[in-house]
């Protein structure tokens, strides 16, 4: 079982995930790839073999008003191949999560078109890096628009219109308030799209009252043979939040304590929650899978959980 984390590196200051300069400074995918190469070397040193790349790796690459950025992927063929080769040599499993602004099932055709273009760009990057089928593009169903059946139907329709470069890598994740595991299962049955089980989303939105291990099993079985599934895990935040409250009559702000919400992500994964869930799941599930930790501690949380599991449940980590 690989443990990975998304995008931002916290364990080594100064490692940027992508070129985040504004358009006026002409950011470029090649600069992002230089940063990415530095991150890959760091991951190798820490023996972290799963990582989600920044969705903005190629800045403004599909921005409708900025055509000057649209050819970055073609311009970086050699650089993408080089950094992809480094990932393959390091046995690093990579992925993207499409930006939250990507809504494939949008009612607005323009938004849907834009989302499709974004998915294509991300798919082309993975292809140009020469990565295998385990390098996937994660997305959500999108909007509900008051009609679940139509929303799911529109996703299926748009999925089928996507080019092969996207369809062979796109995977679908359950979310925490609109589309549950049975919803995405319906999409899988019509399209074959693999499903990503998200533990925290499942715990927050499980209207059918499914058993967690069985929901996990449904998702794992949706993956094609020979491609190791991946899932997302996060513990809910339990610590108090401090928010700046603005008084209505004047502009002054004052700190206020707020209770955490169950949808919020914790800084670190609760090792006992992790062990309890996956130990139980093992009684139902017979497939190997990798885990993307979606907690705020990023790589530090991966290192910590790895230490915790080594101590408390070495059998879960496997090799």
């Amino acid at each position, binding site marked *: 079982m690989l443990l990975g984390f998304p995008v931002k590196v*916290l*364990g*080594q*200051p*100064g*490692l*940027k995930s992508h*070129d985040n*300069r*504004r358009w006026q*400074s*002409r950011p*470029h995918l*090649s*600069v*992002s*790839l*230089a*940063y*990415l*190469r*530095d991150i890959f*070397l*760091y991951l190798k*040193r*820490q023996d972290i073999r799963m990582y989600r790349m920044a969705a903005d790796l190629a800045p403004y690459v599909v921005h409708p008003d900025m055509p000057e950025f649209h050819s970055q992927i073609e*311009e970086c063929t*050699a*650089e993408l191949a*080089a950094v992809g080769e480094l990932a393959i040599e390091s046995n690093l499993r990579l992925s993207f999560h499409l930006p939250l602004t990507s809504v494939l099932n949008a009612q607005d055709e323009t938004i849907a078109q834009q989302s499709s273009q974004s998915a294509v760009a991300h798919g082309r990057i993975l292809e140009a890096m020469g990565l295998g089928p385990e390098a996937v593009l994660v997305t959500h169903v999108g909007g509900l628009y008051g009609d679940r059946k139509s929303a799911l139907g529109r996703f299926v329709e748009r999925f089928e219109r996507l080019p092969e470069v996207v369809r062979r890598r796109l995977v679908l994740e359950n979310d925490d308030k609109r589309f549950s595991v049975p919803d995405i299962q319906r999409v899988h049955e019509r399209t074959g799209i693999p499903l990503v089980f998200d533990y925290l989303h499942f715990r927050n939105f499980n209207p059918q009252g499914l058993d967690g291990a069985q929901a996990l099993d449904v998702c794992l079985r949706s993956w094609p043979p020979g491609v190791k599934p991946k899932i997302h895990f996060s513990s809910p935040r339990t610590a108090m939040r401090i928010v700046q409250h603005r008084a209505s009559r004047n502009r002054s702000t004052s700190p206020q304590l707020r209770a955490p919400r169950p949808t919020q992500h914790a800084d670190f994964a609760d090792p006992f929650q992790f062990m309890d869930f996956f130990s139980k799941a093992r009684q139902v599930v017979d497939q190997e899978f990798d885990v993307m930790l979606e907690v705020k*501690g990023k790589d*530090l949380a991966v*290192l*910590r959980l790895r*230490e915790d599991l080594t101590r408390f449940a070495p059998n879960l980590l496997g090799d």
Partner: protein
Amino acid sequence: MAEAGAKHGDRTARVLVAVMNSERDFAMARDGGWYRIPYESAPSRVGADYLAFYQTRVFEEDRWAVNYYAPVKRYRVLPRRSIIPFEPDHPRADALYYKIEIGPLRRLQHSIPSHRLRRITFIPTTLERLLRAKEINDLWCGSRHEEQLWRAFKNNGIGAERRYPLREEEEDYTIDFALFCKEGKVAICLEGHSPMENVHVVRERGSVDYYDLAAKGWTVLRFSARELARPGSFCLPEVIEAARREGGVLPVPFR
């Protein structure tokens, strides 16, 4: 063009300080707008928003200092023969290089000198540090405790060298702070300090062999983060005492 100061959004921009050791390469950076780094032996951090250049002894007036920097436009990975086509028979003609394309060179308002003769390779830093640095040792971004000790040295007029490189039997390693005294040398090694508190993160640098250092005539002092953080820490007095036993820290050489 002299630099007045970093724009607000630029302050945390990443800078890679690279070595410029020939007039020809400088002309290529200034007139051609590029710099190259061998791909296979590139430093662990090559990504940056800006490149700055440490100029070696060949540059006369500008030698042994960082004087220029430039914004990075893009990186290319190319064989050397594509970058330098007029040297097709070079033994490394087929080797891959990063060709880093840069904008116009900007001259820093103040040079950033290296006061001592030491090996400089690549230094990853930030634009804010680059524009504020008074000397090369100000460029390194260290942990909180490392920075704290560096400030204490500066405030007490102790001329230390940060991240001092040593080579021992083909193995490179660095010591966190080196003091050069009249009768000896003091190595200060910080142990167990990590960028984040409470989380063990594997240190990335090769570990120092204290026996080797001692055998080479260094007095070795080791401090943990806890010792450095303690109020009224004894670390600084201990450093001063060690330097006194070695005859006192030599004044910074004027070059």
